[in-house]
């Protein structure tokens, strides 16, 4: 019982991490249908942003870096969208391979710029310590994830920009003849989606390694969250992230980390038997 209670905050905080890294995908994958394998490298870019800012801001880097990393990663996403991805709309599987190529290049670039070994981002002193099995830095990530979700939700559902984004995703041609500047919307979507990856990257410096391969550790999990949650569904992503987080933590507690990963995969396959399109499906009557 005690173990059960102790694992609960850990599971939720793993969920928060998953959610944070998957949120950006709600835009790029959920809205644009782009499977961005370079998402992990945008996360990495966010982490390195925090690392570089350290020289200016010292231990406050993690806070200051949040908006900066958003801008940096967002800008990278924007460039990627303009130079390559815009030729690929409507061909999600191709974007997967294209962006994988990009991710390889970005990793090598990071290696050349910052060196292969990991670097260190110092956490603010007030994030040391914690309550019970829940360290403050995990609490911080949890709160950050909540705030980001709220922001994303409001943006998608309460603003004209969000609505235009959905319109472009659903019917590009019609959007254009409805007066929507589809190019602008694409750019914005990509900027935000990638920017969110940057934010996640900053948060990850608190708990994980900061190095050129940082992104590769999270990318598969991030996509699993989106798949389990249902494409483009924010609520789905939240529930799936929490579910996977808890599943991960309890499976690891009662077996071991290797087996936990296998169990998670098996559960997802089983789950898709019941809910093939994920938890929350956006349906329509049209035949695909």
């Amino acid at each position, binding site marked *: 019982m005690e173990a059960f209670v102790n694992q609960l905050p850990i599971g939720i905080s793993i969920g928060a991490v998953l959610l944070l890294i998957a949120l950006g995908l709600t835009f790029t*994958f959920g809205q644009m*249908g782009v*499977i961005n394998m370079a998402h992990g490298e945008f996360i990495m870019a966010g982490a390195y942003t925090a690392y570089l800012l350290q020289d200016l801001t010292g231990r406050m880097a993690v806070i200051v870096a949040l908006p900066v990393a958003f801008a940096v990663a967002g800008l990278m996403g924007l460039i990627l969208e303009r130079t*390559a991805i815009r*030729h*690929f709309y409507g*061909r*999600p*599987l*191709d974007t*997967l*391979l*294209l962006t*994988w*190529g*990009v*991710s*390889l*290049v970005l*990793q*090598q670039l990071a290696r050349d710029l910052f060196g292969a070994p990991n670097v260190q981002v110092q956490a603010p002193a007030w994030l040391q310590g914690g309550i019970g099995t829940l360290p403050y830095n995990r609490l911080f990530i949890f709160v950050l994830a909540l705030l980001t979700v709220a922001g994303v939700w409001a943006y998608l559902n309460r603003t004209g920009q969000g609505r235009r984004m959905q319109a472009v995703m659903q019917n590009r041609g019609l959007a254009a003849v409805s007066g929507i500047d589809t190019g602008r919307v694409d750019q914005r979507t990509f900027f935000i989606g990638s920017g969110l990856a940057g934010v996640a990257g900053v948060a990850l410096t608190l708990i994980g390694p900061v190095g050129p391969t940082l992104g590769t550790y999270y990318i*598969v999990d991030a*996509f*699993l969250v*989106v*798949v389990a949650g249902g*494409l483009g569904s924010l609520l789905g992503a939240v529930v799936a992230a929490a579910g996977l987080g808890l599943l991960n933590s309890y499976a690891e507690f009662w077996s*071991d980390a*290797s*087996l936990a*990963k*296998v169990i*998670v*995969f*098996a559960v*997802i*396959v089983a789950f*898709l*038997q019941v809910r*093939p*399109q*994920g938890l929350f499906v956006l349906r329509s009557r049209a*035949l*695909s």
Partner: protein
Amino acid sequence: MNAVTNLARLRGPGIFAVVAALALVVAPLALEPFRLGLLAKYLCFAIVALGIGLAWGQGGMLTLGQGVFFGLGGYAMGMHLKLVEASSLPSSGSSSGGGPALPDFMVWSGVEELPALWAPFADPVFALAMVVAGPVLIATVLGLLVFRQRVRGAYFAILTQALAAAFVILLVGQQGLTGGTNGLTNFFELFGRDLADDSTQRGLYIVVALVLGVLYLGARQLVNSRFGRLLVAVRDGEDRVRFLGYDPAVVKTIVFAISAGMAGLAGALFVPVVGIISPALLGVVPSLELVVAVAVGGRFALAGAVLGAVVMGYAKTSFSEQFADGWLYLQGALFILVMTLAPKGLVGLAASAREALAARRRPAVPASRTVKEIA
């Protein structure tokens, strides 16, 4: 006009014959053993690529977990070779001896008795059967589960990727059973022939090339058949296909299983050629690399898949010999360029170049004369 079409029709088999002659006769004579071994390795990958071309290019199933099936085939073969080696050699140095012969890694992993899973692999027939049957079985089960529930497109891709990740973790975790990260290595003989021998290696190469050729012809036949059209239809409109009276899940599962079987076979050939099978070969990255190779070659043509695998394999070897540090840049850049500038890959590029040439030539020559010239 007739002459033109006849010639065009001849071109396919013609190219095939030339390539076959090059691969089967010229290469074994011209290449030194080390290079021939490399070529054999690329051809193994080409077999996997052929399966990917079938499943993805024709069937729209982007499978990012082909390494799993490659691995199943490879391990089946590796287990057999290991057992042969263990029983033929008096266990060297380390082991205390006595009892049934154990593969070396089991000895240092503290396994005392041959696991039940291993025992039947001592039989070469069983091992060879499992090379194909294992992957096909798993692909069929997974395919039916997943396709019947209409999981497709990106979902399927991500799922297979996760499968590859989970499979590797499982393999690594069962060290006593699988050799862990090290995998299986240190093989001495294949069906009684010394693996280190150059002539064995040359024979292996010929076998690989023949298998690839036969599978290629088979796959082509499939693609050009009604089933191939059906497959394209499933790719482009799975839901509509149901209303034509076909079950898309069955169609997809069949093709997925075929591609898995090919990967398994390739894995089995790979083991004696390269001399090792390890989880590093089966994970997310190697699986993706093969898909990339298919895309580079041209996924919509089976020949493209094969070409892509060989070209990328060769590029990897030679680039990494020249400038190791830059290989990732090169691979990434090459890939971005191909995807943006030539989404149909090298084969597509060649086709459109030919078309462009023809288009430029056409206005200059009156139609009636073209026919005569060729005839």
